[in-house]
């Protein structure tokens, strides 16, 4: 038998990431509840910074790191280089995250913030080394590998620039103002890390979950080169000239890359053998819609920015909410129920399968809780995002309440899966 084996010890490192991410996700609406006014002002606000980093690192990145230890060996068709390195990375990442988010929240840019940023940077570098050495074990290169490794490099650069920005609060490192570099830091993270990583992994997983017959990777190659070119051009151009008329063209290049990826997903969807789309896959498709809405906002941000109109700040805030709380959150809310049940199922039932009747992976979570979670998330999207735009407190409160319900249901289902007890239904 020569299928890819999952090492038993991998289970703990993977699930600890899912558990911490679920707790961080639950903390997000609570933090938002105590900083409602911040959502009606400028995005460069201590509490918005704390929430953004909790969403980007504690929620989005934490779950991607955990899932990566399980999925990267699958996507790259090889075993993970080192589990010890994964544990060291996690042990540095968690205290780093707590220190950074807390010091942003109270806004004391001193030793705690600096140590937090430095710990996160080291943790991220160790993760990247682990991915690089895992990929190095494989002889053949694929476009998926290019996406994944480029994403890891971008995460390192994002963390390095973020650390420099933290130090810049107390020691003058940069001649330009903090906001100038914040754009570069944010886009390196959103486009370089999240977008490239999500495309790299999902372009293998979505066809597999849909049982799609579409196998061509040409669109993915176009997507990779367009997105990476757009990102590099944006970094260089905005460093020297800030936002200008060329930014429209650069954005267009990046959008063309995202379009190629979405076209690939559409082709997989059209050629799928599995006709029934389940709730987790619906949530995944909702995430693509939210990504498209975020992309539509980009020209408005550039336009109002060039006109020096303060409305650009409002659009930028909505853009950020759509990316972190919309696209990334919807994707994780769906894909958790496509990955975690399988990880738990393999641990409990792999040795029993074929001998006795066992539950299926989809039986390991509560489907009713998942439906309430999905409904809560849709209510959050249709109330909170317009609430940010119109600065309407009732809409913002409704959105946050719906997000609390979403996070509570999600957390409950994660607990149900992680504390699952093995059960069988008699001999086959």
């Amino acid at each position, binding site marked *: *038998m020569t299928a890819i084996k999952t090492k038993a010890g991998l289970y703990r490192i993977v699930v600890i990431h899912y558990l911490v991410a679920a707790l961080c996700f639950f903390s997000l609406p609570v933090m938002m509840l105590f900083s409602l006014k911040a959502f009606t002002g400028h995005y460069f606000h201590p509490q918005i910074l704390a929430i953004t980093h909790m969403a980007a690192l504690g929620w989005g990145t934490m779950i991607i790191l955990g899932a990566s230890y399980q999925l990267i060996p699958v996507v790259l068709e090889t075993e993970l280089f080192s589990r010890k390195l994964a544990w060291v990375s996690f042990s540095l990442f968690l205290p780093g995250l707590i220190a950074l988010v807390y010091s942003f929240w109270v806004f004391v840019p001193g030793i705690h913030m600096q140590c937090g940023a430095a710990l996160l940077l080291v943790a991220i570098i160790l993760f990247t080394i682990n991915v690089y050495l895992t990929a190095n074990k494989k002889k053949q290169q694929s476009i998926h590998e290019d996406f994944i490794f480029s994403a890891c490099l971008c995460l390192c650069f994002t963390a390095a620039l973020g650390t420099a920005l933290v130090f810049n609060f107390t020691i003058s490192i940069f001649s330009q103002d903090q906001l100038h570099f914040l754009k570069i830091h944010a886009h390196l993270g959103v486009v370089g890390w999240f977008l490239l990583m999500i495309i790299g992994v999902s372009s293998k997983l979505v066809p597999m979950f849909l049982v799609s017959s579409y196998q061509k990777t040409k669109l993915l190659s176009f997507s990779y080169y367009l997105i990476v070119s757009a990102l590099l051009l944006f970094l260089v151009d905005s460093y020297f000239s800030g936002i200008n008329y060329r930014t429209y063209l650069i954005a267009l290049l990046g959008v063309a890359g995202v379009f190629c990826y979405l076209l690939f997903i559409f082709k997989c969807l059209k050629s799928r053998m599995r006709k029934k789309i389940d709730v987790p896959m619906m949530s995944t498709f909702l995430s693509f819609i939210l990504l498209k809405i975020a992309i539509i906002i980009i020209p408005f941000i550039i336009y109002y920015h060039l006109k020096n109109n303060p409305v650009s700040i409002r659009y930028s805030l909505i853009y950020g909410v759509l990316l972190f709380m919309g696209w990334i959150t919807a994707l994780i809310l769906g894909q958790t129920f496509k990955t975690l049940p399988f990880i738990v199922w393999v641990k409990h039932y792999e040795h029993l399968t074929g001998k006795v009747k066992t539950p299926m992976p989809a039986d390991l979570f509560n489907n009713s809780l998942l439906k309430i979670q999905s409904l809560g998330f849709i209510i959050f999207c249709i109330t909170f995002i317009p609430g940010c735009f119109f600065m309407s407190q009732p809409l913002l409160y409704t959105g946050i309440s719906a997000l609390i319900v979403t996070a509570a249901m999600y957390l409950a289902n994660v607990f149900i899966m992680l504390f699952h007890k093995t059960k069988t239904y008699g001999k086959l």
Partner: protein
Amino acid sequence: MENFDITDNLSFMKIEILETLRLVMDPELHINIIDLGLVYGVKIDEPNKQINIEMTLSSSYCPMGESILSAVKNCVESHYADYKANVELVWEPVWSYHSITDEGKRLLGI
């Protein structure tokens, strides 16, 4: 897929094994591996009491691959206690949509 050969003494047993393997389900698709067309052949080595199953997976990076293969081995050995099962994973011919049986297509809603 196996054909029934009336001159082969073991044909009936081979068909029985294939029917037994309908108990092994793909954990994601909830369809048995026979209707998915994953099993390519069954060979019985009667003197050595060994059953050889030749099969494939729908994708070489299937995270459940190892589970499906061990399910096949467990299933055969638990139903044919006197025999040892050997599962050989092959990638040729490549599994495709055409490998799914009519019943499998019906279950998938195609």
